[in-house]
């Protein structure tokens, strides 16, 4: 198979992202300039996302056996690039005062984004691993980035080691699972696996199941699904905030897209035991995530635990996809991922705005009275938290609505019940933060001003809040886009 230049055209976003990184690297090599590096990265990601968006409805092609560039992958390419860009904007003021060379951070960010784009376009185990490891490697670096800083706490190191070791274990399991699948089917393409899982020759159905479960576990680790979730709070807490945001958003969405494609194309759910295993993981994740967050005082940990629960919610739609006619479950996953990205970036973004690499304001006490000290940030944060809780007027509600809908259509009553219980528990800790912000400010505690005055970061928050509210009230545009692109998955 000969790859022509025309074939590469659909890969343009990926290529632009790569080029961006290379340009940035070269720029650093010529002369260190923090603002320039950041600017190049942001601009490059913007261009990548614009290109991806403009080609979104026109291209649908398999580029090499490894990558598929269809509407769905392009949608997530856009989402990834935009999110990465927003994170880069947040990173700028955050790292501005780091007492170490800080330009390379943007290289890591760019490379991680490349990995994520590969992942969302992957329908082959090789590209999955390739993307995943590119992403992870960069993330190790991002997590540990301020490790040399004298001012920063020692947590980045601990976080990075934890993430690295455990992630390697998970990668091992994932790879082993892939090897087993390969042994069973002789192929690494998602779409070719389907015939074999159906007919279960050779080594027997049990073998396939074990293989699929191992793959699932490898992915579940990255998605921080219980009981593979334990690294999440520690790594989130220890990482510098922009890295946390990256981990929590792009790290999750890219992985979930892979999981979705894998599960849907291989029809792995036709095995009862796989459904059972995934359902169990979903239930445990929802309950454990919410319960763990219940009395937390560290906002980063709260959001970490809540992300465990949210990934559990998403599994519900994933399971539903097996039972439901049509694309509704895929749409549910897609929409919820989108909503989750918006609200996670927003929520972490607020924390990141008031923090910097020297001092992170992570404790719930720091936010007491924020409503009166800085109404703008408090309003954004409240919006994001309420959205995470699934309250109307926010995009999170529409996401929840999707989940409920696919759950109802699939008749997953137990999972729905757990979802309701989990959401109920979840309300408590989200509202707890909101309430603290509503209280009268304590003197001499927390950050004084509104944190960074960097216009870009506030602009990002405004953008996210607008997105949150507009799509919460009138989701139709996004709904129809997602309806269209979800056809690609099936």
């Amino acid at each position, binding site marked *: 198979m000969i790859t022509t230049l025309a074939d590469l055209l659909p890969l343009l976003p990926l290529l632009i992202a790569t080029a961006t990184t290379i340009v940035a690297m070269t720029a650093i090599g010529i002369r260190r300039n923090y603002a320039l590096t950041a600017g190049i990265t942001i601009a490059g990601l913007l261009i990548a996302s614009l290109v991806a968006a403009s080609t979104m409805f026109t291209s649908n092609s398999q580029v090499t056996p490894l990558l598929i560039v269809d509407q769905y992958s392009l949608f997530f390419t856009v989402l990834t690039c935009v999110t990465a860009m927003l994170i880069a904007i947040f990173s700028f003021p955050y790292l501005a005062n780091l007492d170490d060379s800080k330009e390379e951070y943007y290289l890591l960010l760019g490379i991680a984004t490349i990995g994520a784009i590969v992942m969302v376009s992957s329908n082959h185990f090789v590209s999955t691993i390739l993307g995943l490891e590119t992403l992870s490697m960069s993330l190790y670096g991002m997590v540990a980035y301020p490790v040399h800083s004298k001012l920063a706490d020692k947590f980045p190191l601990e976080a990075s080691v934890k993430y690295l070791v455990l992630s390697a274990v998970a990668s091992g399991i994932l790879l082993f699972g892939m090897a087993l699948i390969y042994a069973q089917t002789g192929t690494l393409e998602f779409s070719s696996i389907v015939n074999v899982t159906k007919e279960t020759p050779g080594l027997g159905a049990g073998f396939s199941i074990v293989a*699929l479960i191992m793959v699932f576990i490898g992915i579940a680790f990255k998605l921080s699904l219980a009981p593979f979730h*334990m690294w999440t709070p520690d790594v989130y807490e220890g990482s510098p905030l922009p890295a946390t945001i990256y981990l929590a958003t792009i790290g999750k969405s890219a992985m979930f897209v892979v999981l979705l494609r894998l599960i849907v194309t291989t029809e792995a759910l036709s095995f009862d*035991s796989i459904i059972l*295993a995934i359902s169990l993981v979903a239930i445990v994740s929802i309950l454990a995530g919410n319960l763990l967050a219940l009395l937390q005082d560290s906002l980063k940990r709260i959001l970490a635990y809540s992300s465990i629960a949210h990934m559990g919610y998403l599994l519900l739609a994933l399971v539903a996809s097996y039972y439901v006619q049509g694309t509704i479950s895929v749409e549910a996953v897609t929409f919820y991922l989108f909503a989750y990205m918006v609200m996670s970036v927003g929520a972490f973004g607020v924390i990141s705005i008031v923090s910097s690499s020297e001092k992170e304001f992570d404790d719930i006490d720091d936010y007491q009275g924020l409503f009166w000290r800085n109404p703008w940030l408090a309003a954004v944060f409240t919006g994001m938290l309420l959205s995470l809780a699934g309250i109307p007027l926010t995009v999170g509600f529409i996401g929840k609505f999707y989940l409920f809908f696919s759950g109802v259509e699939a008749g997953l009553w137990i999972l729905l019940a757990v979802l309701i219980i989990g959401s109920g528990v979840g309300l408590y800790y989200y509202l707890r933060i909101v309430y603290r912000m509503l209280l009268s400010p304590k003197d001499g505690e927390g950050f004084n001003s509104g944190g960074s005055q960097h216009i870009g970061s506030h602009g990002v928050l405004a953008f996210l809040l607008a997105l949150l509210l507009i799509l919460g009230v009138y989701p139709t545009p996004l709904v129809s886009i997602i309806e269209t692109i979800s056809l690609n998955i099936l």
Partner: protein
Amino acid sequence: MLDLIWLLPSYPLLGFLALVLTGGRLPKKIVAIIGAGSVGLSFLTAAIIAAQFLAGSEDYFVKEVWAWMAVGGFTPGFSFYLDGLSLVMMLVITGVGFLIHLYATGYMADDPSFSRFFSYMNLFVAAMLMLVLGDNLVLLYLGWEGVGLCSYLLIGFWYTNPANGYAARKAFIVTRVGDTSMAIGLFLLFAQLGTLNIQDVLYAAEAEWEVGSGLAIAAALLLLGGAVGKSAQLPLQTWLPDAMAGPTPISALIHAATMVTAGVYLIARTHILFEIAPSVQLLVAWIGLITVLMAGFIALTQSDIKRILAFSTMSQIGYMFLALGVGAWSAAIFHLMTHAFFKALLFLASGTVILSVHHEQNIFKMGGLRKKLPVSFASFLIGSLALTAFPFTSGYFSKDEILLAALEMDGPGTILWVGGVLGAFLTGIYTFRLFFIVFFGENKGHVPENEVGGIHMNGPLFLLMILSLVGGFIAIPVDSVFSYGEVHEEHHVSTLIHGFMIAVPLIGIVISYLFFYAKIFSIEKLMSIPISQILHRFWFSGWGMDWLYDRLIVFPFLWLSKINKADLIDSFYAFIVKFARASNAMIVRTQTGYIRWYALSIAAGLVVLISIGVLL
């Protein structure tokens, strides 16, 4: 003119509104004019209407003022129904009511809440008129609850004393028990008969229900429940004596002349229901009789002047119930009217006494007041005579009718008669016990300087004295109301029995005379016998009914409330919260921070999931 019947309750209602809205800022004189004047106007209107009605040939007259509500066949209106029965009631209420209002302008003259007092009084009269004039049971119920409310407000009029508040609440709540029963009765009647218009209900009930049918019995019983509550009959009688905490004119108006007889009115009004439920009707008689006797015995032992009168009221209403029970409808209403006269007289006179001796109510701290308080003395004399049915006083005629009707009844009639006569005997004793102790002998407490009076206090007393004396000669126009079913023949009773009936109360008076005036019998000696001590204590406490109800109902309720103040159901949710917190505490401990432990959990998850995959 008959069309203007709606003016009757309107005057006092307007008076009420005027007094409430001005909020006590009016001078007392104007308050008095509004307060008493509005009822006076009502009385005038009532008199004119009555004259016109009696002159006409119609048996009844209906006037709908406006349709209250119309909900799927349930169409009570604000409509007034006038016939002989409501005519008598309306005249008694406005007439006696006016006199008492007049009296009260003097009695309450020094009270700082003069205006509040009259506003309540006016509201009461308005409600009472609604009660007797309403042509449907819902409007009647409106009046019924309205008078209950006013009774509550007026008993607790002097609110600074918690005891008064207690008495007021007790009165309201105990009667409300009855009211609820009545309300259920209304639901039943509507469910079965499809209307609550009184005449339609009676007509339909008679047409649809057989005599003695279960529904008729249930309906009659439920209405009876309301009646015993309002009229302080067994078993809901306990509130009345405590109700004496209110100002004395209240006791005269509400707790003697009008409101407490509402139960009698209700039963008389719906007498056809009771006729098709003979067992319930008989129950009415028995309740009446037992109340007569119980209250009589209690009255023997009381020392508070108003409580004695209260128990006598209870007892006299018992007679009315007895009359209703034996089917002597008009006799019951007749007694209701005469009782209104003489009991109002007695209460008002006792008011003068109490005021004159500076709010002393214990009769044993009075004595020898004959000379100092001549008007009261005269009033008490006449009132007591009428109460004991002394021949040719008003009470004589009405009570006589009742006892004769009981005697002529088949079956248990004789027993009822004997009981009634025994009651009359007790009446003689306790009435004159009070009379002799208060007005004769020597004074043991305050010596009054002079009798409180004045024309607006004494005037009503004189008028009521006259009415108590000659009221028995008034012929009440209720024949057309009770034309159905009442025994209307001359009484065939031998002179001997009749004489016996007249004599018995007189014997009572004589015994009282011997004990308390002549002191030939010694009360101390009687009280030294253990059995009479026990009886005394027992009767003094009202047969221990309060004690019993406290233990059966009040205390358990209070106890239940107290232990469940925090709401048991809430603790279920509190448990959920606790459970969640405990789970959190437990599960948080898994987040140890050790990488090896985390890896272990991954490995464990791997093993578990693979086992699930392989085993299933």
